[in-house]
Each structure stands twice: as C-alpha cells, then as structure tokens.
C-alpha cells in the first residue's frame, strides 16, 4: 500500500518526552498501542481529532508532529 503523503516525528517526540512508550501515548490519546505503532510506521492515517490529541500530548503545534511530504504522493 502507498505511504501517506506526510511524515511524522512521533517517535522522536516520544523519546524527548522522557521515553514515553507507545502504550502510554495511546492511553493519553484514546487509541491502542498498535494504532500508535501503525501511525509511526506510516501504515495508518489518523483522524484529525487523533492528530490534534497527539500534538497536544507533546504540547506542540500540529505541523511540528506531522509534516507534508511531496515524496509520499
């Protein structure tokens, strides 16, 4: 399956947030650990609500977490 036309820095932000686990982030966002893993790997495009919730967890603007990539499509 084609990758989404955007990348994300969730893994880096988790590391910078005290090595937060995927499960912890999932609990705070309201999705499963597997969904966080799928988003990080570019296997799932989250809804706008989940994208904003992730950004709020790191206290960052949305465009810091997700960035448009011309390579992806």
């Amino acid at each position, binding site marked *: 399956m084609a990758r989404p036309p955007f990348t994300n820095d969730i893994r880096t932000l988790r590391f910078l947030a005290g090595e937060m686990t995927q499960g912890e982030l999932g609990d705070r966002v309201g999705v499963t650990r597997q969904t966080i893993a*799928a988003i990080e790997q570019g*296997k799932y495009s989250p809804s706008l609500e989940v994208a904003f919730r992730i950004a709020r967890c790191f206290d960052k603007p949305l465009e810091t977490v997700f960035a448009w990539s011309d390579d992806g499509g």
Partner: protein
Amino acid sequence: MTYREKTTWLIVVSMAVAYTLYFGLIIGGHPAGREMFPMLWLFGGVAATQALVVIAGYAVLAMTTPKAERRRPDERDRAISRRGAAAAYYVLMAGTIATGVVMPFTDTGVTIANTALFAIVLAELVHATTMLVSYRRGWHG
C-alpha cells in the same frame, strides 16, 4: 499480532473449516443438498459447532492476552472493519443476484437456501480477510 487480528483469524479459520465441510458434504451427495430436514440438521450442527469453537477461542484469547491489549476498538479498528464490510457488501449483492438466478431453475427451497448461505459465508470471509490484509499492510481511510 494484535488481539483483534487474532480474533479475526479465529473467525476466518473456524468459518472456512466449518463451511468447507458443509458444502463439501453437499457437493459429495449428502441429502442436505436436496431435502429440508437433513439440511437443517447439518447446518444446525455445523453452525452450533462453529459457534462453540469461536466462544472457546475467544475465552482462550481473553485469558492469554493482557487486558491493556483487549481494550475497545479504536478508530483504526473501526475504519478497518468498515473497509471489510464495504468489500463484503459487493460479494453479498452478487450472491443475492445469483440466488435470484437460481430460483426459477429449482424445485425445492433447499437449493435456494444453500445458495444464499454460500453467499453469506463468502461475504463474511471477504469481510474478515479484508480486515486481516488491512491490519498487515496498513490502511489510509
């Protein structure tokens, strides 16, 4: 593999085995392909056995999977399930049309019932298989 993938595999495998046996017996000449009561007994037996296997499988998976992994479906699970249902819809429609085509050429309701049952089983297998593929390969709904 996630808990939801495991339960979907359980449904796919149990359904494939149960209804391969059911339709295999019918193709092999079992009276369930021609007469109503043998069909009801065979179908009832196969469906009940499959239900018991699925219930037992769910119980085993629930006991062997941590509670944190068994939480309610999130938006990705629901999106993947919707994708499976959308794919299954077309199979079910084609099966319904096929059942309608069979009707004028049959004397008993058993053939019609078996054709409709085949369409339902096939649609459900497509539903579950699409979900498994989506979990493995990713889904950008």
